[in-house]
């Protein structure tokens, strides 16, 4: 299929003797919200880390926009247009919210050490653009009032939003969201689903890893189910919800 944006082909990864991921192949199509679900320890975050380049796979291949990106370093993956959020929010705690998002502009800007030290006019202009773009994104996510606040002073739910803003600032083609609903209450989760839909509608493809089914079933176009490092089912949410194997692992029946 020509509209496949990201594809993993039989990825393998083990830690010590534990096989975290055993031959997982998934496809993410352009413009869709794809979810990867599964119980704790199913290998969801490992799969993410293999795609984002945090750890290299032992076997298998990752292709993005037809290009082989297996074992690329995270910064190179980010430059290609894959942004991510983390399961436990990883903000830059002592920087302001605005600065956090400004760091997100890094792969789309270029001023180096020398230009930075001399504060050349082009550097200054670029910095103004970075700031303007970051403010625009903050305004879009309703965070503009917190722009000058230190990131660690924000309540947890807002911190998660800042992480979204920071990832969006990299102008991603594909957004990897690692358990975005973890630790959020039901209202925040609802807002989050709306946000993810809004992001998708702007043409950014989303790959969501989620432990909790409700968010996934409401927003995703396609779901893959992992259990013990293997893909056990894949399809539209309605089909997945009725899949006996999925029901078995989720409800823990014999």
């Amino acid at each position, binding site marked *: 299929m020509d509209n496949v944006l990201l594809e993993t082909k039989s990825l393998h990864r083990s830690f010590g003797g534990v096989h975290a991921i055993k031959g997982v192949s998934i496809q993410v199509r352009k413009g869709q919200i794809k979810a990867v679900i599964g119980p704790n320890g199913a290998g969801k975050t490992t799969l993410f880390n293999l795609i*984002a380049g*945090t750890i290299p796979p032992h076997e298998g291949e990752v292709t993005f926009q037809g290009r082989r990106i297996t074992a690329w*370093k*995270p*910064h190179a993956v*980010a*430059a290609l247009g894959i*942004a*991510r959020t*983390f399961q436990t929010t*990883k*903000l*830059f*705690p*002592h*920087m302001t919210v605005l*600065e956090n998002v*400004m*760091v*997100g*502009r*890094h*792969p789309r*800007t270029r*001023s*180096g*050490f020398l*230009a*930075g*030290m*001399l*504060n050349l006019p082009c*550097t*200054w202009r*670029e*910095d103004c653009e*970075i700031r303007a773009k970051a403010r625009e994104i903050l305004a879009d996510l309703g965070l503009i009032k917190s722009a*000058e*606040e*230190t990131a660690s*002073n924000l309540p947890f739910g807002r911190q998660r939003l800042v992480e979204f803003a*920071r*990832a969006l600032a*990299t102008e991603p083609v594909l957004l990897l969201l690692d358990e975005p609903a973890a630790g959020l209450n039901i209202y925040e989760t609802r807002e989050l689903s709306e946000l993810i839909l809004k992001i998708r509608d702007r043409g950014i493809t989303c790959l969501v890893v989620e432990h909790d089914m409700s968010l996934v079933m409401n927003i995703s176009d396609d779901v893959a189910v992992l259990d013990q490092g293997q893909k056990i089912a894949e399809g539209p949410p309605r089909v997945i919800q009725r899949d006996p194997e999925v029901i078995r692992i989720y409800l823990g029946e014999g």
Partner: protein
Amino acid sequence: MTPLRRYWPVAAIALAVIVLQAALSVTDATYYMTQVTMSAYYALVVIGLCLLMGYAGQVSLGHAGFFAIGGYTVAYMTTVNLLAYRDVPLVHWLQSLHLVVQWQNLYGAEVLSFSPWPAFIAALLLTGLIALLIGVPVIRLKGHYLAMATLGFGLIIYRIVLGTKSLGQADGISNVPPFHLLPWLEVNGRAPFRIQNYYIAWATVLLAMVLAINLVHSRVGRALRSIHQNEEAAHSLGVNTYRYKLAIFVLSALFAAVGGALMTHYNGSIGPSEATVMKSVRYVAIVAIGGMANLWGAMIMAILLNFLSLRGVFGTFDDAVFGAILIAIMLFAPQGLLRMPKWHAVASVWRKGTFYFFARKLPDTAGESEKSRMSPFSRGGPHG
């Protein structure tokens, strides 16, 4: 921050420098300027280390080594006598370009050696190269491991300068000629040049501060701070963490080398004591007491503490004072003296006190942050 607001402390310090010079000249105490000048060259090391440690979060216990490489390179190149090789075409050619010059040393002997400018540039290139070679394997290490590795590097440099005959072993290298920056401007430690050199040193420090401040507020500076605060997140946002850490390590070494090279011309000599680990520890202690990620704090502390040390105020406890500073800072204010949380607490009690006194009304706790932002006595919200 607007660009001008960022520079006002530069103007303030420049003014203070002029006032201090006037005061010392009027009171006929210009000899103090010698130690201020030397402290300023040490401050260059501290500014570089502050970028590396305070902002990028990478410790180095080997910065005295880079200072020494800068200093020893200019000392060696400007004093090595090439008179025996004067007929070698290469030396002859360098002499025709004025890169090698003939001069008389203190004892009236003829010396044919490199002139200071090429020696200075060579010192920077050599320091940059060594920092790169050390940094490539070492900068991957984190925390204590990086500290230990750079400590090892510092020890090696110390033993090399102490053990190499051509570097003067325990005596170091003396008779280093003055450095003519411009025909009418020279780095020279003799008494008639005191005021001139006081200004040269301060100009260098303020230039270094402007470069460092610009860097900190730039795209690169944000990337460096992001590495310090969460390396994994920085990496995922496209920051090539390894390359940035390596680059700031080399840059920081270059700041130290400039300090070492200028100090050597100023003193007319350099000895192995400049390469000791105690010196490296001292630089780290100064960055810590200055507030870690606080360039102005680091610079002011560098001038102040080195000045006191050079005046002999600490006596035989010189190194012990810096050790004590490290212990005290780590125990009571790991964020640095200028960022001590207790000061914030005191300041906020003071603000609240004045608020109660004038308003005679308790602010409701729910809207406390809003209230304090609106209060005329606060300094602009939670960060005031």
